[in-house]
């Protein structure tokens, strides 16, 4: 009998049957909505009246609309703070939790909790933590003799939002890095310490090069998440009329589509964001070929 991985002729239709759910999801969910967005971006449509042909008009708007330019710049700023934050903190955390310490399972669970908790619920809690009058963060600051900070006022909102988003993401990053770290053979460290390498040197000369695949993967995932960041930002920075003190690209897409009913503008913005993510991924894969060490 043939035990190979290739399906036999008669089994081939089973193969396709089993793949159908995924294929349908991809076709309609991912590729379908991408094409629909691409199509919509060429029209002006308010969901009620018939769409009107707009040509490149909605794309020209990307470079003229001040609000969108601000949102796009915010997304870039946010990503520049968020991605290194997540990668560095979750790597350090994973290194700390990769040792034989008491209660390591407890700490791993605690750091992973935000990942499996609803962002809306935790954002509400963060709202209370950040509260100007009643928040515990300001209570702590005041007890230590510092002046309280208005964490969610316009000036500080970006920083506060980055902190929450990083906090929400380090659990997932930690798991990725822990997997990478456990894959490093113990004898490398043994050999290094025999050669007189300090803990510090071991981290930079042994650990870091060997977790580059994880760093690469985590940077990619974090960047994609950063470009799509929305839930915490919506919950923490939304203002009375629906604007935000830190409007990011996805916020602008949502607002144009479902507040102002300008599907064309929103679609063009979504396409631009998708292109940005694609370009970033291309750069990352080029970087991978040059710098990532696979054993």
């Amino acid at each position, binding site marked *: 009998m043939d035990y190979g991985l290739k399906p036999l002729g008669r089994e081939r239709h089973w193969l396709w049957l089993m793949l159908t759910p995924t294929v349908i999801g991809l076709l309609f969910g991912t590729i379908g909505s991408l094409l629909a967005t691409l199509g919509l971006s060429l029209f002006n449509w308010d969901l009620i009246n018939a769409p009107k042909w707009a040509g490149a008009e909605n794309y020209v708007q990307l470079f003229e609309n*001040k609000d969108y330019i601000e949102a796009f710049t915010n997304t870039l700023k946010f990503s520049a703070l968020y991605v290194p934050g997540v990668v560095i903190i979750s790597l350090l955390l994973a290194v700390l939790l990769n040792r034989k310490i008491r209660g390591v399972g407890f700490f791993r669970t605690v750091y992973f909790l935000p990942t499996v908790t609803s962002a809306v619920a935790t954002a509400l809690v963060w*709202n209370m933590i950040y*509260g*100007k*009058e*009643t*928040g515990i963060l300001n209570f702590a600051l005041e007890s230590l003799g510092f002046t309280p900070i*208005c964490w*969610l*006022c*316009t*000036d500080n909102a970006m920083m506060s939002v980055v902190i929450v988003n990083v906090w929400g993401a380090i659990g997932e990053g930690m798991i990725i890095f822990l997997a990478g770290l456990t894959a490093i053979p113990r004898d490398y460290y043994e050999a290094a310490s025999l050669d007189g390498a300090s803990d510090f040197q071991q981290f930079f000369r042994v650990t870091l090069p060997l977790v580059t695949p994880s760093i690469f993967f985590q940077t990619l995932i974090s960047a994609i998440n950063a470009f799509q960041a929305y839930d915490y930002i919506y919950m923490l920075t939304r*203002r*009375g*009329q*629906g*604007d935000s*003190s830190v409007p990011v690209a996805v916020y602008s897409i949502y607002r144009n589509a479902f*507040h*102002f009913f300008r599907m064309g503008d929103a679609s063009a913005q979504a396409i631009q964001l998708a292109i940005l993510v694609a370009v970033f991924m291309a750069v990352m894969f080029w970087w991978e070929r040059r710098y990532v060490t696979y054993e």
Partner: protein
Amino acid sequence: MFDAAGVDYPTADWTYDDLLAAAKTLTLDKDNDGKVDQYGIWSDTWDMELLWSEAIWAYGGEIISDDHAKTLIGEGGARDAWTFIDSLYKEGVMPTPTTSGEFGFDLFQSGMAAMTTIGHWAVPGYVQAGINFDVAPMPKGPAGQATSVNSAGFVISKDSKHADAAFEFIKFALSEAGQKRLAELGFAIPVLKSVAESDAYLKQPGDLNQQVFLDSVAFAHTKPVFKGYEEWAGVVGDGLIPVFDGEAELNATLDEVIAAADEVLAANK
């Protein structure tokens, strides 16, 4: 709260300065921890119809030009109105937008503010919450008294498949019987004079001076409605939040906001 602080109840002759003076006396730090426990007044300033449109009219300003092409909230008396509103925040008698967000926005309903300026729609909620309150007309400004009115309407879409049935419903809603039912729900003021002046409206739960709302129509302005309102209101209402949070200067921000608001108007022509 008024009795405890020894402040006279608001009258129909109050000016905005009287409002500020009363709010100052009513703002209290009861436990002396340096934080306000009771504000003199709470209101939202992100939407025009709670306070700022009324104040602008009372100070002799306008909201928008008749052709809806120009935002007028920075001209003449309007700027004085903004200065007044800013002073409510600066004097600490009204919680900043960020602070009021922390307390779930309606500080009047939660018993943390002694006064509010709000529309009739809030009445059923306040009555249900068991607040001991009454209503007074909006204060007078240098250019007289002003309040805002707008209609809660029924609409039939031009493409509706059931236009006739919808029309029948609207006929009922506008009839005396329909208006009575709506009055009993308590949110809006009946449009039929006969119902507005009947017990169905005047004797609602809460035992309030409902007549104030009817008399206010005499000096009411209609809230402006125009294409692109949603976006314009966002630019103006949310754009001024940094000022009221104490992070930006009023006049410069107002100029920026007006320029941005006019751009929205131009784009929605």
